[in-house]
């Protein structure tokens, strides 16, 4: 797999440098370039900090800005950032109202953010662990749900709430609440090549797909025969709806997310199919997002996220946002 890069070791740093330069009106590097933060931090506001391995761009750096994150820490490809990065971000963005850490549910991320919070104990810190992946196994002892594309929805809603000067406790409660109402399932048509190892994470035949994948190019829960868009959508929605059990009165947010190697036109086709199916079940799509936001390097594939939102969350969703990757209102 050919990649635009100079050396695997400097790829993340060079890419981030480009990101910060391209969006210099919105963001700057934090101390020692260990994280990216808003150019203008707001007073009296809880600081929202997220982060994770590189390879998911535009997440999270693309969500730094007004109405969303205050800072994002990026690790090596598919590798959690280290606590020193997170601590530096906490120190630089906490304006006295405390920090909310938004962490995707992967052991590496959880443990590194946790160590950072322990080591920066002089700050008021709360953590939301995003768990939006459907969990067909349903097993209690297992890890349960991953944090995947639904993370965008968490960061948008919590970001808008923080901008509206919600307090740390309330943000934390909203985050917990959202974990019951946002579900994602992903399908992939190819593995990915991690730059430093130069081998594909898995190899699929022309007639195969991986169902139930995360965003690290890892194998999914089952390898299935490739099928038509309508059939794939049906399989995915079945898993989501069984888990989410939306009511006909619910207002749904439907988010089709590309993993990096899927053309925009196919994402809209998948959106069309998903929306039609939801409507045929009597469900209402009240808000929509289609695009390549939470990626797994250049993986071909997409995820479907469905969120059941109440009026309060709908207006948080509609609230102005001004980041590199997500921008509306204002």
């Amino acid at each position: 797999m050919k990649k635009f890069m100079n050396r695997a070791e400097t790829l993340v740093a060079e890419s981030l440098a480009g990101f910060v330069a391209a969006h210099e009106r919105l963001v700057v590097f934090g101390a020692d370039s260990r994280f990216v933060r808003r150019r203008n931090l707001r007073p009296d506001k809880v600081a929202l900090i997220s982060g994770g391995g590189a390879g998911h761009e535009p997440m999270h750096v693309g969500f730094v800005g007004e109405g969303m994150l205050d800072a994002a820490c990026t690790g090596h490809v598919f590798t959690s950032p280290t606590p020193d990065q997170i601590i530096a971000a906490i120190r630089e963005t906490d304006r006295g109202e405390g920090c909310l850490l938004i962490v995707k549910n992967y052991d590496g991320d959880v443990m590194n953010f946790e160590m950072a919070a322990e080591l920066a104990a002089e700050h008021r810190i709360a953590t939301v662990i995003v768990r939006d992946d459907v969990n067909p196994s349903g097993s209690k002892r297992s890890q349960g749900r991953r944090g995947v594309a639904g993370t965008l929805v968490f960061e948008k809603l919590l970001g808008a709430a923080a901008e509206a000067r919600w307090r740390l406790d309330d943000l934390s409660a909203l985050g917990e609440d959202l974990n019951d109402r946002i579900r994602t399932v992903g399908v992939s048509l190819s593995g990915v090549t991690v730059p430093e190892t130069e081998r594909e994470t898995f190899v699929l035949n022309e007639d195969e797909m991986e169902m139930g994948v995360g965003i690290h190019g890892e194998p999914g829960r089952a390898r299935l025969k490739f099928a038509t868009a309508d059939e794939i959508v049906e399989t995915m929605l079945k898993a989501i709806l069984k888990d989410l059990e939306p009511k006909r009165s619910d207002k749904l947010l439907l988010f089709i997310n590309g993993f990096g190697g899927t053309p925009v036109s196919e994402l809209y086709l998948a959106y069309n199919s998903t929306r039609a199916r939801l409507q045929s079940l009597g469900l209402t799509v009240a808000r929509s997002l289609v695009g390549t936001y939470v990626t797994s390097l250049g993986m071909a594939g997409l995820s479907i996220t469905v969120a059941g939102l109440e009026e309060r969350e709908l207006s948080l969703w509609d609230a102005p946002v001004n980041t590199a990757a997500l921008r509306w209102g204002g």
Partner: protein
Amino acid sequence: MVSANAALIGGLIEACREVIAANADHLSELDRAIGDGDHGTNMRRGLEAVYAERNRLVQLPLPKALEETGLTLVMSVGGAAGPLYGTLLIEIGRQLAGATGQIDFARALEHAIDAVARRGRASPGDKTLLDVLYPVHAEVVRRAGLAGISEQAERAASLTSGMKAMRGRAAFLGDRSVGHVDPGAKSCSLLTAAICRFLEEQCPA
């Protein structure tokens, strides 16, 4: 002149760094099967960071050196392995430092392993590096020789192949994780073996 302490710490660092460098590709390969394919890269990055600081570390008393090494790992590895190996060394170091009178390495190790388990919310049989650490601790307790510990670590790593992962990325695979050796367990057995080998060379029988 190099002190005995400095020689010990420096030698351990060197031995660990070497075994990881030599096996990094293999570890990533194992991680590709049931994880995200970066365990070798992560570990190598950590050991290189420790190696880069060896001149400072060898000056420290062993407990402090262990703690600082752990911190360096935490701040350089990232991923799951960083906090886990970091916690292990930090806690061993703190236990040894806090020990009064006779130093009980087995106790220190036990405490540290428990801290790792808490950090990872993991239990024996979850198919993680703990499935090597617990058996290693048992061998230490029953005062098996270095060769015995080393062998036991290797056996324990192989046994993870039969386990279904309950923690780490591999857990998302469910039953599909069975039949593969856990990369963290493997790195742990490799490090154990390298340390035993080094210690054996230092104080033959």
